[in-house]
């Protein structure tokens, strides 16, 4: 089978399933008794196994298979959930992630999994000892069971039904010896069962049952969501039924050809299924051949669209917007009421269309956040600290382009919070704080921005230490340090070459400081600030634009050319008197609210005929790069506008002071000024 065309889908879905495993495992660690969670994990693992086997990735299939066995043992209460098991299973998920990533980057997805498979095996075997006792006590209940055998097709049906959250039961009905109308009773039993599920097999066969060609007992296999006890009761209500035995089919049975013989297992599944029914009501797709159920999130109907296609759609749409602009100007010239009306309608519709297209590119920040719980768990263990990570607002949506970039800076901040922020349990107790530190990751919308905050209740930023270090590193002078506010001091830790770690630890302090985070965020058009109270904790606030493909700019004119300056860099615009321009060495400067701000003559930079100093007023755009300011001198301001960011392409790889281009309403290309490269 040529599987290449499915590769992308495989990778995407695998990642989803692994993420789901991760999340549910962490949840399970908090509630080890909640077997519904195990079922979720089991389902993800099972799907992953099936997919990888189909795609020919044997190592992944092997590892998931062993993981499944362990999970099965857990949900059948054969083995208790312990930290040790967790570590191994989480490591298995880690391995699987690595393998999937390898495949995604063109590799073979092969990895030496023997050691891990061995430990999984050991865990499973360790559980078996405990199981023996359970089986013995349960044996009297289940000894009368008649095992059916299933062919491949039926096996598939059963395992798929597990994925859909159904339960497969074998029901053995024993009629009274003196039963007269055996076929009628069979009919009634079937009637009951077919109301609550689907019968996939019976022994003897249906025709034989109808012809009364059987003794007193018959067995049917049923796929249902009903619990075994309810079923037993219902079937017992049929007159002349002597006994009913219900036993559950498990995946374990399907996979290994052995069946779970203990009633414990049955009960476990029952509770699991009932719990799940509570949460999943109405969400289970009724048709089995349709979409595959990937868990609780299957409530919405979605379609996976390649981001490139959305980009094409966006490009086409921009064309439309440009033509709309032309139409508008033609209409205003012609003054034809009907034409005007049509153009107005078109303007409204295309406006709505624009917001829909933009919305399609938005994805919840969850896709980044959900890798953090596991990371925090691991980090806390490595650092010997107790940390509880709270995530708020994971559903907050951001443009895909921003999501792709924001992950690494957040990892850095979280590591920093755990390493430098949260104290060790002993220290915390000594300070009268709860032993477990709390780190809160929060996302929310505000205006045209998304805010992501990381708050910890740790030790906060020590002014004394930061100032000492900043002076030692020559970042500030002693005099300036004295005048700085606490906030300014805290933000010093974002300065380049700064690290407050007194010793280099594994987690942070490898010379890569928070300045990298700051730079990344600023390159995204964002902004980071710190609030900190010594002894009580810190709050890192990251402000990001909603999208990178559409930005707000100030359009300015230089001669006849139009340039765009991103609003994120602009502090304000000003008209200054030429006589207020001062000279410092060879640099023209102005006094802007007490700051000496150097002037940059954009015409000079952009190689245009010289600036006219005879004008009595100059239009200046005050821009900033971090703490540094500059005033860009332009001919005139056109106004503020939202524009679509376009690259200049690969031919013009990097042009000085130009970060990209955009297309204006009249179809002209305007260049976007890169303020960062204008300020050294």
């Amino acid at each position, binding site marked *: 089978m040529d599987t290449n065309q499915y590769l992308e889908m495989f990778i995407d879905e695998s990642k989803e399933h692994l993420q789901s495993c991760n999340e549910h495992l962490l949840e399970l660690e908090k509630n080890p008794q909640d077997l519904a969670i195990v079922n979720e994990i089991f389902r993800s693992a099972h799907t992953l196994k099936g997919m990888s086997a189909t795609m020919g990735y044997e190592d992944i299939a092997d590892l998931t298979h062993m993981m499944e066995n362990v999970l099965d043992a857990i949900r059948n209460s054969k083995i208790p959930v312990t930290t040790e098991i967790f570590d191994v299973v989480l490591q298995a998920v880690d391995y699987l992630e690595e393998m999937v990533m390898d495949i995604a980057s063109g590799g073979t997805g092969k990895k030496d999994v023997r050691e891990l498979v061995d430990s999984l095996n050991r865990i499973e075997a360790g559980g078996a000892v405990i199981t023996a006792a359970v089986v013995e006590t349960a044996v009297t209940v289940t000894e009368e069971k008649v095992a059916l055998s299933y062919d491949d097709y039926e096996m598939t049906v059963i395992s798929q039904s597990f994925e859909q959250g159904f339960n497969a039961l074998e029901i053995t009905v024993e009629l009274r010896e003196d039963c007269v109308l055996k076929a009628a009773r069979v009919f009634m039993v079937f009637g009951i069962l077919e109301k609550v599920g689907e019968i996939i097999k019976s022994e003897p066969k249906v025709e034989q049952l109808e012809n009364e060609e059987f003794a007193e007992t018959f067995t049917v296999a049923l796929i249902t969501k009903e619990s075994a006890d309810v079923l037993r009761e219902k079937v017992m209500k049929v007159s002349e039924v002597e006994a009913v035995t219900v036993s559950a089919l498990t995946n374990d049975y399907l996979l290994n050809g052995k069946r779970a013989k203990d009633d414990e297992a049955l009960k476990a599944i029952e509770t699991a299924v009932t719990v799940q029914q509570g949460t999943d009501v109405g969400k289970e797709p009724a048709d089995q051949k349709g979409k595959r159920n990937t868990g609780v999130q299957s409530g919405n109907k979605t379609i996976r669209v390649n981001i490139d296609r959305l980009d094409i759609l966006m*490009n*086409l749409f*921009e*064309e439309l917007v*440009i033509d709309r602009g032309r139409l508008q100007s033609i209409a205003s010239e012609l003054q034809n009421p009907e034409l005007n009306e049509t153009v107005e309608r078109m303007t409204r519709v295309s406006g709505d269309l624009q917001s829909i297209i933009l919305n399609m590119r938005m994805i919840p920040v969850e896709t980044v956040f959900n890798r953090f719980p596991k990371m925090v768990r691991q980090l806390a263990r490595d650092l010997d600290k107790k940390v509880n990570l709270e995530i708020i607002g994971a559903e907050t949506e951001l443009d895909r382009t921003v999501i792709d970039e924001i992950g690494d800076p957040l990892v850095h901040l979280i590591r920093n919070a755990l390493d430098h922020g949260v104290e060790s349990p002993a220290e915390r107790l000594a300070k009268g704080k709860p032993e477990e530190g709390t780190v809160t990751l929060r996302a929310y919308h505000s205006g045209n921005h998304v805010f992501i905050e990381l708050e910890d209740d740790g030790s906060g930023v020590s002014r004394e230490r930061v100032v000492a270090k900043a002076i030692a590193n020559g970042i500030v002078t002693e005099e300036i340090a004295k005048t700085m506010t606490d906030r300014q001091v805290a933000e010093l830790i974002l300065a380049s070459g700064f690290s407050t770690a007194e010793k280099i630890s594994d987690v942070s302090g490898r010379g890569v400081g928070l300045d990298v985070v700051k730079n990344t965020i600023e390159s995204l058009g964002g902004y980071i600030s710190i609030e900190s109270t010594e002894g009580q904790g810190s709050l890192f606030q990251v402000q990001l634009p909603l999208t990178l493909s559409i930005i707000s700019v100030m359009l300015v004119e230089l001669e006849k*050319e139009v340039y765009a300056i991103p609003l994120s860099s602009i502090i304000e615009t000003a008209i200054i008197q030429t006589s207020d321009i001062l000279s410092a060495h060879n640099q023209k400067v102005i006094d802007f609210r007490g700051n000496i701000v150097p002037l940059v003559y954009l015409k000079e*930079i*952009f*190689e*245009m005929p010289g600036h006219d100093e005879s004008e009595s007023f100059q239009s200046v755009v005050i821009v900033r790069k971090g703490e540094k300011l500059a005033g860009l001198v332009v001919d005139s301001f056109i106004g503020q506008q939202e524009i679509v960011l*376009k*690259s*200049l*392409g*690969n*031919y*013009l*790889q*990097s*042009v*000085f*002071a*130009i970060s990209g*281009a955009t*297309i204006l309403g009249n*179809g*002209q*290309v*305007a*260049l976007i000024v890169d303020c960062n*490269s204008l300020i*050294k």
Partner: protein
Amino acid sequence: MTEMLNQDEMKVIVFELMDKEYAISVDVVQSIEKMLSISRVPKTPSYVKGVLNLRGVVTPIVDLRARFGLDTKEMDESTRIIIVTLEDYDVGLIVDAANDVLDIPAESIEPQPEVVGSIEVDFLSGVAKVDKRLLVMLNLDKVLEPIKRVTSDDL
């Protein structure tokens, strides 16, 4: 189909520059446009005329005359922009006129002569004689080597 043709014939777009005829393979040509309004991009080599909006894609434009070091000429009615697509970028070439598509037999293409006009020999991949016309085959990879990073340090 095209491969079959390629073995003995090559389809080319013929364009004019300083009264000489040049040819590039039709495979790399995306479209031929009339003159559009171009926005200048500062701090780029003089032969980069700027960028234009080609149906929503910002496309850089190279003036071939300037690239070859020839005298520049005012744009007129016959001026065309040939949009070519190379490996990972699109570039528009300003030429005096573009009005012919020809099939040239492979055997008519000869290695470049030592000197052809004043154009750098590097830019040429050969010449083709078709009937009485002499077509100069361009080596676009050389003509359109991406503009290297221009940083503030270089200025």
